[in-house]
């Protein structure tokens, strides 16, 4: 049964304005905030309020996104751009969904940022408040753009604004390095996108309007050139999303950025790449050969496994979260690949199911990864420490942060009744249905892929146990500096919003799926039908058929709560008054201290042993006579050495060769021009 959402929403607007105009107004609002920030250096109070205004803009944007999702597509042509090349904006269901994602996650993160940025020094704050709204506006424009030109401009604005946000603490060389790497890969990706749009435009030569998405949609697309465009787009968007092997910037840039920025980058910016991938392959390209899907599926699975394995061995909490983002992107792209496979095979219903799962996961990831980065940021802000080897027991000092982060950790670990479970369950349902495919090879291989997704999900849970356990449980591993302060109210409210998103998305999947229906209808001409018909439809989710598998999170929650209550009551009854506080048995070894707890390195050790071949481990083993020994093990990516180092070396060698031309003597430079001149003269007059 399809859930009917109250469709009166768009009529709230005045009859003559369309959602896209409101969206443009929202973008303008953010741009105005960015433009105002440098002038507010004197007015510190106003400046500190700017993130809250960003949050308001984000909330409005979420509402506009919702309207765009439900209303018919609307478009405007902006009065500027280059001469004869105006910007086109369009808000259809797909844009609406991602705008909703941007607004909803952006609202929570910006609220959190209001508290987080409050303590910054005024000059730095003015800089951040210049780039932060610009970053939001860039992302919104990427989603709204309806021509290649506006898209690329917005894409670059987004990349540059986030680059400057990443390098907020540019006094630290490592951060500058991370920022450069990010900028480099972002631009390589952007070049690929530019080429992809160029190829797409190729079918519609001769018209001034050829650069609009509408023209690309209608263009004649030869299968070969369509594939070229797809591969370029996969490369370009993959570089932004962090697909292996273009992921190297992600574990560097995410930890370097201030936490709200990490949350936005991971939660929202990576999704713009997913948006772009969906837009290009389903909307702009008319044909979708099955092998695209196989390729994307393989890339996604490799990314998911690679990401989660590396997440498991990290000992820096923000780096761990960054690797976990890579894993989630991998899962989303694997879902994208499967959607393509089903779509090419003519299995519309299954394509709709997979598409729903991947969109759902994108939405979920925005919430829980935003929440986790916010929680990690709160700990970082309180202790000044990112290394998990120096943290521990934070739950006693920061209960709000700890409990809210726990919700995020449970959600990302894929535990019911939270949201992570729903999307991963839907995706696995889709994988289990592949025997219906007409290609026998795929039929045989895809169960392995399903196993890989399941493995990634299980390892993600392992990673989260490590993250939460080491940071928040146990005892502090290092002396706590001064008095630890719990996150302030704006931070808490932001995290509460995100946590509420995780819970609600988990509890009401039928409603969420109904919300996603316009998008799946747009891209695959089909919607996911909830088979749990009748009155149970709002409660029960059965994506394929109610005989096969169904899931009712509310009932699940109810059962969990009832069992918890019963156990609680029973324990109270049985043990009431008999509890006493005493030292636990110390195994005959009385000198236990916090340093004997399992450490981040220790927890990841099994994974490191198993997947040793993929990693480059740098160990620092302490001296046996050191009274305060510190063990440090840093696992790095081998791909860096295998893939990037040779390219960097080649570039360095080529530049050295070219550098020989540079003598520093002006005469030589003159001779170069002279010889060129003579050559050209001979050449021209021949």
């Amino acid at each position, binding site marked *: 049964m399809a859930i009917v959402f109250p469709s009166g929403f768009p009529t709230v607007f005045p009859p003559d304005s369309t959602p896209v105009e409101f969206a443009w107004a929202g973008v303008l609002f953010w741009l105005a905030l960015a433009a105002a920030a440098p002038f507010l250096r004197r007015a510190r109070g106003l400046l500190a309020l700017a993130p809250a205004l960003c949050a308001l803009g984000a909330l409005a944007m979420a509402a506009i996104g919702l309207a765009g999702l439900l209303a018919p597509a609307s478009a405007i042509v902006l009065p500027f751009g280059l001469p004869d090349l105006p910007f086109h904006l369009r808000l259809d269901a797909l844009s609406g969904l991602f705008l909703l994602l941007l607004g909803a996650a952006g609202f929570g993160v910006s609220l959190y940022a209001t508290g987080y940025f409050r303590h910054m020094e005024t000059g730095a704050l003015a800089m951040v408040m210049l780039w932060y709204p610009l970053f939001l506006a860039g992302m919104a424009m990427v989603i709204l753009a309806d021509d290649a030109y506006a898209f690329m401009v917005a894409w670059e604005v987004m990349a540059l604004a986030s680059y400057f946000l990443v390098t907020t603490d540019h006094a630290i060389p490592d951060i500058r390095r991370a920022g450069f790497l990010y900028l480099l890969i972002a631009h390589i990706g952007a070049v690929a996108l530019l080429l992809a749009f160029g190829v797409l435009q190729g079918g519609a030569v001769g018209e001034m309007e050829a650069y609009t998405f509408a023209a690309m949609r209608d263009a004649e697309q030869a299968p070969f050139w369509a594939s070229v465009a797809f591969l370029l787009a996969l490369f370009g968007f993959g570089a932004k999303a962090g697909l292996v092997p273009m992921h190297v910037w992600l574990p560097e840039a995410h930890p370097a950025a201030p936490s709200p920025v990490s949350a936005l980058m991971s939660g929202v910016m990576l999704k713009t790449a997913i948006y772009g991938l969906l837009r290009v392959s389903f909307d702009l390209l008319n044909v979708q050969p099955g092998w695209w899907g196989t390729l994307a599926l393989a890339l996604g699975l490799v990314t998911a496994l690679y990401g989660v394995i590396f997440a498991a061995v990290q000992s820096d909490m923000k780096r761990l979260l960054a690797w976990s983002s890579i894993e989630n992107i991998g899962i989303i792209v694997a879902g994208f690949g499967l959607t393509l496979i089903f779509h090419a095979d003519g299995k519309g219903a299954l394509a709709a199911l997979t598409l729903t799962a991947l969109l759902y996961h994108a939405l979920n990831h925005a919430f829980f990864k935003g929440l986790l980065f916010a929680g990690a940021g709160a700990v970082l802000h309180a202790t000044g420490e990112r290394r998990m080897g120096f943290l521990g027991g934070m739950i006693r000092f920061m209960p709000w942060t700890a409990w809210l982060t726990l919700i995020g950790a449970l959600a990302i670990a894929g535990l019911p009744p939270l949201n992570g479970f729903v999307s991963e369950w839907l995706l696995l349902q889709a994988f289990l249905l592949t025997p219906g495919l007409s290609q026998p090879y795929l039929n045989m291989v895809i169960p392995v892929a399903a196993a890989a997704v399941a493995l990634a999900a299980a390892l993600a849970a392992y990673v989260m146990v490590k993250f939460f356990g080491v940071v928040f449980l146990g005892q502090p591993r290092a002396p706590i500096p001064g008095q630890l302060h719990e996150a302030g109210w704006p931070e808490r409210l932001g995290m509460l919003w995100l946590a509420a998103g995780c819970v609600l998305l988990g509890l009401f999947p039928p409603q969420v799926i109904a919300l996603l229906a316009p998008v799946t209808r747009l891209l695959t001409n089909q919607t996911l039908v909830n088979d749990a018909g009748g009155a149970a439809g709002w409660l029960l989710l059965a994506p394929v058929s109610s005989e096969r598998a169904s899931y009712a999170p509310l009932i699940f929650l109810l059962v969990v709560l009832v069992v918890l209550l019963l156990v609680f009551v029973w324990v109270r009854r049985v043990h009431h008054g008999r509890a006493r506080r005493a030292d636990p048995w110390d195994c005959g070894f009385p000198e236990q201290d916090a340093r004997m707890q399992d450490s981040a390195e220790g927890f990841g050790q099994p994974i490191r042993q198993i997947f040793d071949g993929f990693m480059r481990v740098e160990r620092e083993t302490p001296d046996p006579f050191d009274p305060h020994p510190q063990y440090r093990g840093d696992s790095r990516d081998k791909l860096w050495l295998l893939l990037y180092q040779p390219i960097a070396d080649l570039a360095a060698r080529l530049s050295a060769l070219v550098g020989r031309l540079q003598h*520093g*003597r*002006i*005469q030589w430079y*003159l*001779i170069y021009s002279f010889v060129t001149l*003579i050559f050209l003269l*001979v050449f021209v*007059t021949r």
Partner: protein
Amino acid sequence: MTEMDTALTYPLQVVNLLAALLLLISFAMLSQRRVVGLITLFAWQGAALALSTAIVAWSTGQHHLYYSAALTLALKVIAMPWFFYRLVRRLDVDRDVEPMINIPTTMLIGIALVIFAFNLATPISQMAGTVTRATLGIAMASVLLAFLMMITRAKAIPQVIGFLAMENGLFFAATSATYGMPLVVELGVALDVMVAVFVLGIFFFQIRETFDSLDLKHMEKLKEK
């Protein structure tokens, strides 16, 4: 050739003479070692240019060329040489050091360039419809010779003079091939040259302050290792 013979009226013969003078001065500049002598030669070259432009203007009735001639006279014969004389006196850099290539070799290369330029100009001047088209080869030769001077000189002021001489050659090419550029363009170019000279004048002081010499080989130190 009858048309040619009738076209070579008295004033045009003077123009051809001045063109030859221009080329001669270019060679003289190549061989001149003293900076002051170079400036004088540059002023003479400007004078020849102004005169030939004026004659072309008179004989063809192109009135805007009078303005060009006046501009050339004011800038290249009076203002800039005066400016350079002052500069040389202020900076005390009269003697040039040994150029990179010795002077006889430079002259030989120069002769090769002139032959090349004439060879080059033949097909072009056949297309040009002006009475002065025969001088196009000379104009190109003086451009190339000025470039050569820029290459062979190691000090800053001779190089700038080489640059200006190159501009003279271009100007002459414009006059001989197309009766000069539109006045607006010429004014713009003149202004550019003025600005360039002033900027370079400031640079001279900066270079000397930094390296204690105007010898450009010191600028090699600026190269990134």
